[in-house]
C-alpha cells in the first residue's frame, strides 16, 4: 500500500442504516486470508481496502447511511446476485478491481 500517512481504520463496521452483516467474522477473516494469498498482498492491506470500500468517510464512528449504496448500503439486501454481506461484497469488488 502506498504512502498515505493517515492511518486508515481497518475495523469492519456494520453501518446502522446500511446493509446487515450476514456472514460470520470467521468466514470473513478466512475470505480475506484467501484473497490476500491469491493477490499476493498482506491480509492487513486487503482488510484496509475492504473497510475503505465499505466506508470512505472520515467519521469516527462511520456514517449510518452508507455512501456506497450498492456495496454497503441497504440496497445490498435486495441484490439477489450479490454475496449478501457487505464485507464479502467489498472483498469481491477489491479482488475484481485488482484483476482489471
Amino acid at each position, binding site marked *: 500500500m*502506498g504512502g498515505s*500517512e493517515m492511518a486508515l481504520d481497518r475495523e469492519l463496521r456494520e453501518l446502522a*442504516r446500511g446493509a446487515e452483516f450476514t456472514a460470520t467474522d470467521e468466514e470473513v477473516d478466512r475470505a480475506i486470508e484467501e484473497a490476500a494469498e491469491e493477490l499476493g498482498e498482506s491480509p492487513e492491506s486487503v482488510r484496509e481496502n475492504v473497510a475503505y470500500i465499505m466506508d470512505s*468517510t472520515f467519521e469516527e464512528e462511520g456514517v*449510518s447511511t452508507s455512501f*456506497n449504496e450498492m456495496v454497503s448500503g441497504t440496497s445490498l439486501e435486495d441484490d*439477489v446476485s450479490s454475496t449478501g454481506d457487505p464485507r464479502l461484497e467489498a472483498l469481491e469488488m477489491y479482488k*475484481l*478491481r485488482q484483476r482489471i
Partner: protein
Amino acid sequence: MSQVLQSQYSGQRVDTGSKWYTLFQKGVELGTWNVEKLFDEIGFEQDRASWEALSQDERDQIRYLISGFLDGEREVAGDAATNLQRIMGAPCLDENTEKEMYMTMLTLTEHKHTQFLDVYMQEVMDDQDNYNDLDPRRGTRIPVVQATGLGEVFEHQGLLTAKAANTLNPVDIAKAATNYHLNVEGILARVGASAISRFPERADFPLLNYAFKFVSTDEGRHITHGIELLKELIEKEEAGNPQFQGVKQGIVETLYQDVPYMADFGYMFTDALDDPLGLDFNEVLMRGGNLIDGMYNETLGLDIDYMEVLNVVRDRYLEINEWDIKQRVHEQEQHYQRKRGVAADGGV
C-alpha cells in the same frame, strides 16, 4: 489539518496528512478500474440475453433509468473538469493543492462512468436514447431527461458550478457543492443505484451490476469529498467569518430548489411506465428521504424536516402523474431526429 512546513513555498508542497490527499490516493488505488477490461472480464453475453428476454415495457423502464444516469454522468464529468477544478483553487478554501489533485481523480472517474454507459447502451440496449452526436453542450439531452424535470437539476448544476467558479465566493461554492455532491451524487445516483439492486431475478445483468458497484464505490468517495468540503465551509461560517455567512442557508435553499425535480427521476423509471419490474416509486421516495436525513442532518448537522421535503415531492408527483410521458418522450425524439436530418443535410 494542513500542518507542517513554515516555508514560504509550502503551498507548492503536497501534504500527505490531508484528507484530500487520502481521497486522491485511494482514488488512484481503487478508482482506476479499467472499463474495457471489465467488458472483457464479465462479457456482454448474459446482459444481452436478459435484455432480449424482457418485455418492451420492462426494457423501456431500464432504458429510462440508465438514460438518466448517462445524462447525469456526462454532465458531472463536464462540470468537474471545468468549474469544480477551478473552485478547488479558491482562496477561501484550505488545502487547495490536495483538493486540486483530488478533483482530477473525480473527473477521471466521471468520464469512466460515461464511457461505460455509452458503450453499454450501444452494445446491450437498443441505443435509441443517445443523441450525443447532436452535442449536449448545445442543449441536447436524453429524450426522457428533457421531457421530465430531471434536466432542470442538471441545468441548475451547470449554472451553480459556473457561478461559483466565477465568483469563488464561499456561499456560491456551498450551493454548487450541495447541488452536485449531495443532490446529484448523494441522492439521485444513490436512489438510482438502489433501483438497480432491486432488479428482479429475470432482469439479470451481471456486467451492469458489477459496473455500477464500481460506480457506487467511486461515488462513495465523491460524496465524502462533498461532505468534507461543506463541513469546512460550515465550520468557517460558525467561527463567525463574515465572508462565510449564509453558507448553511444556501445549502438548505439548494435542497428545496432541486428536490421537486429530483422526484422526476424516481417517477420516470417507475410509475411513468406502470412499473413492470416492481421498482416501486414509494420505495424510491423513502430511500431518498433516508439519504437526505443521513447527509443533511446526521453528517452536516443541519435541521431538515425530511418529511416536509417528501411532501414537496408528493405534490410534484401528483402534477407529473397527469402527464403523458410516453407522448412527451416521443415528441422529443422526433425533434432530435429532425435535427439529425438537418445535420446530415449539411446544416450545422
